[in-house]
């Protein structure tokens, strides 16, 4: 595939996902008299916080009562929260992010207790509906952008610390799937592990170490991550080193990373911006629709918007508001 045809494929993909988005503007249903339990693994970075806050705000705007529980990145705590929610017998539960292996048996217990379960970014077989970005589409779009930018050859540093989190798994698998067709691109082994907390700081130091280990121009061409908080640190490390020809790629649209992508002098390469507020809202509206007797599809995909160095000035002003 030539760089030009890759670009055409990207444009087509973004256009097709934008069309899907039009179907989201569903009429909201009232939740008066209903109690909705909302549990999130964390709410301390932009994506998690906006999912959580917008879902709470939308349930309240629809007249419902919220029991909102933030597990602050601790799996043990989230399990306790889910147990607590089951005991409260709410009319529905919305679960946001988390490790699928840990969550699955407990999400099944929500359903066994007769409480309809809705999730954001957790593809669980127990859920009535999962709201997610089209991680298949955006995962391959981001990978193609990377391939395009580095001229389809070079070495790539990859952060892969959260493969057990479903959206990360899908984006990573899509990235690897795309790379299969570009044998001149190599993923540097061992892969890096992104961590929570101190994500950006740790990534800064990891990437600084890797720049020392691979000191020559062309040794590293790109850095990839399934979200963008590690890339804030990674991009800062590359910029601070003065190395050129290395670009960073991720997902979410954290303001600091968007600035780096928009900055022509920075290593920030591209980011797929998720419609975070919309996703929280859509989940709450799906709950309302379901509790009002409507049929809800098993998956609601929300399109992502790709921001690259070239289109940043044009696209960033049009991004959906995050407040």
């Amino acid at each position, binding site marked *: 595939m030539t760089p030009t045809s890759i670009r055409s494929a990207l444009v087509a993909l973004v256009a097709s996902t934008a069309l899907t988005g039009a179907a989201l503007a569903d009429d909201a249903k009232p939740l008066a008299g209903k109690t909705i339990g909302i549990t999130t693994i964390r709410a301390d970075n932009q994506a998690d916080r906006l999912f959580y806050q917008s879902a709470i705000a939308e349930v309240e705007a629809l007249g419902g009562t919220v029991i909102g529980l933030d597990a602050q990145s601790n799996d043990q705590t989230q399990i306790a929260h889910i147990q607590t929610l089951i005991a409260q017998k709410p009319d529905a539960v919305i679960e946001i992010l988390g490790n699928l292996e840990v969550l699955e048996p407990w999400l099944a217990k929500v359903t066994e207790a007769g409480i309809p379960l809705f999730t954001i970014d957790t593809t669980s077989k127990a859920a009535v509906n999962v709201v997610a970005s089209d991680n298949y589409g955006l995962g391959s779009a981001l990978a193609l952008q990377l391939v395009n930018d580095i001229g389809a050859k070079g070495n790539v540093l990859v952060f892969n610390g*959260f493969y057990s989190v479903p959206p990360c798994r899908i984006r990573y698998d899509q990235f690897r799937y795309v790379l299969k067709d570009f044998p001149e691109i190599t993923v540097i082994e061992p892969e890096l592990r992104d961590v929570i907390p101190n994500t950006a700081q740790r990534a800064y130091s990891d990437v600084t170490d890797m720049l020392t280990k691979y000191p020559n121009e062309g040794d590293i061409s790109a850095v990839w991550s399934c979200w963008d908080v590690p890339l804030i640190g990674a991009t800062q490390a590359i910029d601070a080193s003065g190395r050129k020809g290395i670009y960073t790629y991720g997902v979410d649209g954290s303001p600091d990373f968007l600035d780096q992508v928009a900055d022509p002098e920075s290593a920030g390469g591209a980011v797929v911006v998720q419609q975070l507020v919309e996703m929280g809202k859509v989940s709450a509206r799906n709950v309302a629709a379901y509790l009002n007797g409507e049929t809800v599809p098993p998956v609601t995909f929300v399109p992502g918007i790709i921001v690259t160095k070239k289109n940043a000035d044009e696209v960033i002003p049009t991004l959906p508001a995050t407040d």
Partner: protein
Amino acid sequence: MTLAQTEITLPGPGPGRVRAWTATLSGGDVTRLVALATVALVFIGFAVTTRGFFTSWNILNVIEQSAIPGILALAMALVILTGGSDVQTGGIDLSLAANMGLSAAIFAVALRAGWGEPAALAATLGAGMLVGVVNGLAVVRLGILPLLATLAMSNIVGGLELVLTENTVIPATSPILNVLSAGSFLGLSSLTWVLILVSTLAAVILHASPPGLRLYATGGHPEAARAAGVSVGRLILGSYAVAGFTAAFAAILSVSRLSASSTGTGEMLLSILAAALLGTVFSRRGVPTVAGTLIAVLFIGFLSNGFQLKGLSSNWVSGVQGALILAVVAATALNRRKGG
């Protein structure tokens, strides 16, 4: 310490009658009554004001959720009562939570590597106990302050866990994990039964057996215990070893609950330390007891649950736990100064 020394007056029908009644109570009794009354008041407060708090399902949940911190707090209590309750120089094991994290990782990694359940269990319990033995040797043989020795060990163990897991979640399944995670008997979950059994065993050993008496003697009056022929060093070493073993045991419960080993286990240290220290307030002599530790663990569990149901951030629970630790340590220091 007596009431006359502390000049506490309690509300009642008349000052003279109150003094006559309280004159028969020691300072420890009053502290205990006030502590129990506080626990009862907090519980009643949540029950009256918080929707869904006082239901059998919620109460059973909190007890089940208290099983792992409860068992770890009993291990902490054992180390404190054997090493002495002086917070600066006495017994303490700050590596308990991290040890549980490492042990859980060993268990999950061993199962993933295809080890049979017995081998994985043996490796896990052995590793946890080894961490405890190293703690004990550092304290008894090298004379390092327990606070520092176990803090250093906590870092070592936390680092080893990261090396082993690469900071990722490692899924684990096995027959024993299924029984622990899904089993129930007489309406109580497996984890609740494990807490009951471990507490009963601990109570029998500590409060109704000669070894228990020797442990309390070692912590309370080491010189007197030594003079009476008690092997003080060996008992202290043993207490750390048992605590390490218990941390590994709790790790297996944790893996069963999460179907995996997961990072962030070290965060549990604050609640188990708070529970073990707060537990001393419920005993007449101000020493750790099984009942006191359990009341403290459940108190912290209900506090956390009540805060959740009221929609308050769990940061507040951490703050309250920190304040409880400070209050108990301050009260202990104050008592010692008055006693001295």
